[in-house]
């Protein structure tokens, strides 16, 4: 999957996660801001990396603002953001 434009998915509400995806500059760059970053930043990063891999994304910039989302929510918002970014536009 090719990231064509900047796009986002999710919200800043409790238990949700806001994810912005943009075209990269030659690789994957993931920036994470989370209310539970001390304990779960690695887990969030791993989930995002897995979804990127599932969709074959190799060049993207990912900005994440997590509000305590579970794994299934992170996967869903990431997939939505990627699909929107590949089609173009927020």
């Amino acid at each position, binding site marked *: 999957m090719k990231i064509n434009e900047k796009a986002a*998915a*999710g919200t800043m*509400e*409790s*238990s*949700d996660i806001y994810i912005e995806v943009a075209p990269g500059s030659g690789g994957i760059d993931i920036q994470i801001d989370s209310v539970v970053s001390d304990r779960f930043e690695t887990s969030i990063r791993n989930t995002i990396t897995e979804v990127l891999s599932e969709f074959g994304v190799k060049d993207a910039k990912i900005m994440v603002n997590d509000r305590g*989302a*579970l*794994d*299934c*929510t992170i*996967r*869903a*918002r990431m*997939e*939505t953001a990627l*699909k*929107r970014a590949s089609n173009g536009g927020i």
Partner: protein
Amino acid sequence: MRRSMLFLPGNNPNMLINADVFGADAVIFDLEDAVSPDEKDAARILVRNALKYMDYGNTEIVVRINSIDENGFWSKDLDEIIPLKPSMIMPTKVTNAEYVKKLSDYMTAIEQKSGIPEGTVKLIPLIETAMGVENAYEIAVADERVVAIFLGGEDLTADLCCVRTKEGDEIFYARCRMVNAARAAGKDVYDTPFTDVNDDEGLIVDAKKAKSLGFTGKASIAPRHVKGINEVFSPTQEEVDYAYEVLEAIETAKKQGKGAISLRGKMIDAPIVLRANQVIAAYESIKGGSAR
């Protein structure tokens, strides 16, 4: 046994991940009215992931999809959701049997593609137009997937060009026709939500009215209404005790070779036995089959 069915917005992770804590017998993940058009994609992906990764225990999962005439959302909803095998799909603004058959055929194609036995996912059509109410029986018998029909009072009153009231006189005919159609078809029937989320007493009055007309259960848009609905649609201990007495009296009469019997001075005939069996079935279902 479904007494209560709780609507939850399909694009709200906080509600979806906690769906089984509200005490509802069934929850309805809503992809229709609770989701704005520009978030339909996000909601169906979120619901699909919730179904894939969450364990909702004994809480039955229903997914309300978009109407068949709205922008093709309905088919995308089914494409995402059917492979995860929710208990039921709730199609909206169902007006006739043809509508149900079109949906069922599409669901069959997805089930075949996904390696799921045909007919696994059931249907509970939402009837919320004047035409739908008039065709309630043909909708109920349109397809084997249909296990129940559901009355939507808000859209119906708009279609009837009248105002929705707490008393519900304006939907009395629709309620009666829905119950009659469902029972004639041998299906369950569910009542529209009581929409004043802060009026607990009004909810009880409305739920009792629905039960007295023959509804199987009632929907809610407010978690706080679930407990009241469950109480109204559960048989009382007095009803349960009487039902067991009826069945015991029947057994005793059989052993003694008696034809006609009476209990508490009243003749026990077939409708009373049928009602006793319905009460016990409901009671045992609520207790997880462990009662008595």
